[in-house]
């Protein structure tokens, strides 16, 4: 009877218990981190961040809305420059409307207004709309890359990647 009991003394019991608790804690932490990673899907069925936007000669002076619905971009030709303007309001992320009669972008959520250049002039918007990276590929087609943004308040609108000279 006593042999089985003596095979595990108090000190050994607690060391086994410690290992068991550490293993249990590590397993729980591992599962929690897996669950966290699980909440970030690997594939998203959202519009592509990069797209071809025709050739520069299809655009007339002013705002072109053909890529607004699919890609969230206004193509604006203004004073010899063609640029891709983000349609996300810099206040809280709503989508402004282009109002041709008043030559301004107007946000329906809280009334922010922007000039055709994207610079804000009314409402709560704290800064101008962002412009996306734009360039020409080897075939002369326009490539707009939404992963790279240029901000006016940081002086980035002079960057040659933020517009095409037309």
């Amino acid at each position: 009877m006593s042999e089985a009991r003596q095979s595990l003394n108090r000190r050994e019991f607690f060391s086994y218990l410690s290992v068991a608790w550490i293993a249990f804690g590590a397993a729980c932490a591992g599962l929690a981190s897996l669950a966290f990673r699980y909440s970030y899907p690997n594939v998203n069925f959202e519009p592509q961040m990069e797209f071809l936007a025709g050739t520069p000669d299809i655009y007339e002076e002013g705002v072109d809305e053909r890529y607004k619905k699919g890609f969230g971009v206004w193509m604006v030709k203004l004073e010899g420059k063609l640029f891709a303007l983000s349609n996300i309001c810099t206040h809280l992320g709503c989508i402004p409307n282009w109002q041709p009669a008043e030559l301004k972008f107007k946000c329906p959520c809280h009334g922010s207004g922007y000039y055709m250049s994207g610079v804000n002039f009314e409402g709560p918007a704290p800064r101008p709309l962002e412009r996306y990276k734009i360039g020409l590929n080897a075939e002369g087609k326009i490539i707009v890359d939404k992963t790279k943004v240029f901000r006016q308040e940081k002086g980035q609108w002079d960057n040659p990647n933020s517009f095409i000279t037309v």
Partner: protein
Amino acid sequence: MAAKGLADKVRETQVWKSIFRHGPPDNARNRAAVVAGNVFLHLHPIKLKKSGVQLGYTWCMGGLTFFIFLALTVSGVLLMFYYRPTAEYAFNDIVALREHVPLGIMREIHRWGAHAMVITTWLHMFRVFMTGSYKPPREFNWGVGVILLVLTLLLSFTGYLLPWDQLAIWAITVGANMAKATPFLGHGGPGASLARIGDFVMVSDKNDVRFQLLAGRFVGEPALLRFYILHCVFIPLVVGTLIAVHFWRVRKDGGISAPL
């Protein structure tokens, strides 16, 4: 006498005795057994101070909040029988809940109940603060209550998207952009631009808290499903658990606080 005789006969049946293990609550011991021996009532104190049921002192605001939570749970489960959380069906199902289903006010009950629960939660918190009931030994329960308040607001926030109309989509867009502005955790927040190694940006729109909340960069169908699960399963389970802890601690910390 005849009625009493019948009641006694019912109490002597095996069915009655198998359900109620104590005698009729006509003495102090049995009345205590009624509360202590019941799985639902055992969270409740066996004895209450007379001041504990004074409406002028407690406003019954905590009890009202719990009552509304139960009403929201029941009406919410009923709504789930008709609502499909997909971009194709969600809005139409919401309209159908009013037009094509008997008792078309079920959704309104749920909506107004949600507003009421937020109000009563705040008033309960106000009462607890004004009566000093957050002080030791009740400080832990105040902390549990604060978490419950946040979860109540999160329940309202996640439920906001489910009608899938313009108001819902843009309200959640605005709310999710607040997540985007979280320090270090959102890609537009302070500190996010510091977290980079050379050209490698550690906090981007593909791995920040807004992406986790919406399962994407903007409010789309994955966000609708995610909010639906959070609203109907995840947050209610956490809230239910914390409510049990909250009630248990009210009892263990000396019952509802009394006027001095």
